[in-house]
């Protein structure tokens, strides 16, 4: 909610990582947009075994619920000494949904070193309303993540997060397999909510990122409150009174 992504380091077993390079080089068969996950990847296929890993399956169910559909998937390959960096962008087009989100899975089958120019991520950018690569002017933002990771790492991203593939300055090919999932149920309390009232939850939702302008950072909190209210079905939730204060309009009596 505050970061816009979940990072799961080295959670894919070595044998699946070893198989991945060949599978991704050959290519994963395309699926029609909006295919139910159970039909998109047949049992036994590489992609199915990947998304069935308990940690991944559990995280997906917590975020998009049971039986999501597969929007699309893509294999991204960056050749050695690979040309230019992608401009900073959000995928698809500007997305104004206030109470729903898609999740993008990014899987890295091999170690990604700094020289290999892994994915660039901007924590906390997911609620900004910008359209695709209109953010391409921004080369570096304070607190950005220039991903380096061990083999078998998986990221789960809010669809809106600003990201881009960095320039590959190494002598190794870089692979990344991406799958976008759409929810088919309301995204309300889909995760383990036993600690919902823990003060650490509100503290995390109030996190400010180093690249936020001072004033706009306050609006980020306001917008997180709105999304958290939708995801928890709790219209009274607030952080430091930001939303309550500006909606307080006592009725006047004659």
């Amino acid at each position, binding site marked *: 909610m505050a970061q816009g992504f979940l990072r799961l380091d080295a959670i894919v077993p070595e044998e699946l990582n070893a198989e991945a390079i060949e599978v991704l080089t050959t290519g994963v068969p395309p699926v029609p947009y909006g295919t139910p996950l159970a039909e998109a990847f047949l049992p036994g296929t590489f992609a199915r075994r990947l998304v069935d890993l308990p940690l991944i399956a559990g995280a997906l169910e917590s975020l998009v619920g049971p039986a999501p559909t597969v929007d699309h998937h893509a294999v991204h390959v960056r050749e050695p000494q690979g040309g230019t960096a*992608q401009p900073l962008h959000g995928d698809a087009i500007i997305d104004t949904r206030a109470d729903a989100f898609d999740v993008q899975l990014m899987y890295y089958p091999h170690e990604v070193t700094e020289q290999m120019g892994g994915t660039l991520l901007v924590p906390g950018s997911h609620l900004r309303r910008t359209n695709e690569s209109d953010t391409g002017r921004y080369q570096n933002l304070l607190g950005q993540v220039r991903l380096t990771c061990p083999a078998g790492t998986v990221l789960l991203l809010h669809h809106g997060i600003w990201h881009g593939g960095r320039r590959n300055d190494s002598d190794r090919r870089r692979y990344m397999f991406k799958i976008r999932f759409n929810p088919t149920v309301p995204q309300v309390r889909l995760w383990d909510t036993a600690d919902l009232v823990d003060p650490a939850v509100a503290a995390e939702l109030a996190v400010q990122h180093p690249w936020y302008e001072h004033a706009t950072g306050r609006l980020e909190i306001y917008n997180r409150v709105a999304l958290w209210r939708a995801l928890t079905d709790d219209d009274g939730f607030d952080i430091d009174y930001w939303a309550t204060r500006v909606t307080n309009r006592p009725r006047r009596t004659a």
Partner: protein
Amino acid sequence: MRQQVLVLYLATSALDAPVVGWSSYDGTGRTAPATGDGDEPPYETGVAALLDGWRLFQASQLIPPAPGHEYGTSFLKHEFFFEKLDT
């Protein structure tokens, strides 16, 4: 004469505010800046860039939010363009 361009994004609309983002473009061809090529800003503030000889040639306007969109967040607001001329 060739132009080097530095774009700084600041934490407030003040030129002496801290840098939160940066980009550069090099018309001399001596460097090839790219997306995600560094984690450390070139200067701490906009004024620090002036002190190092960069000339400010554009600053973003202060534009009030459109009615109904007061809480929306989008692009960075405080964008400053600097140049150095290479002769």
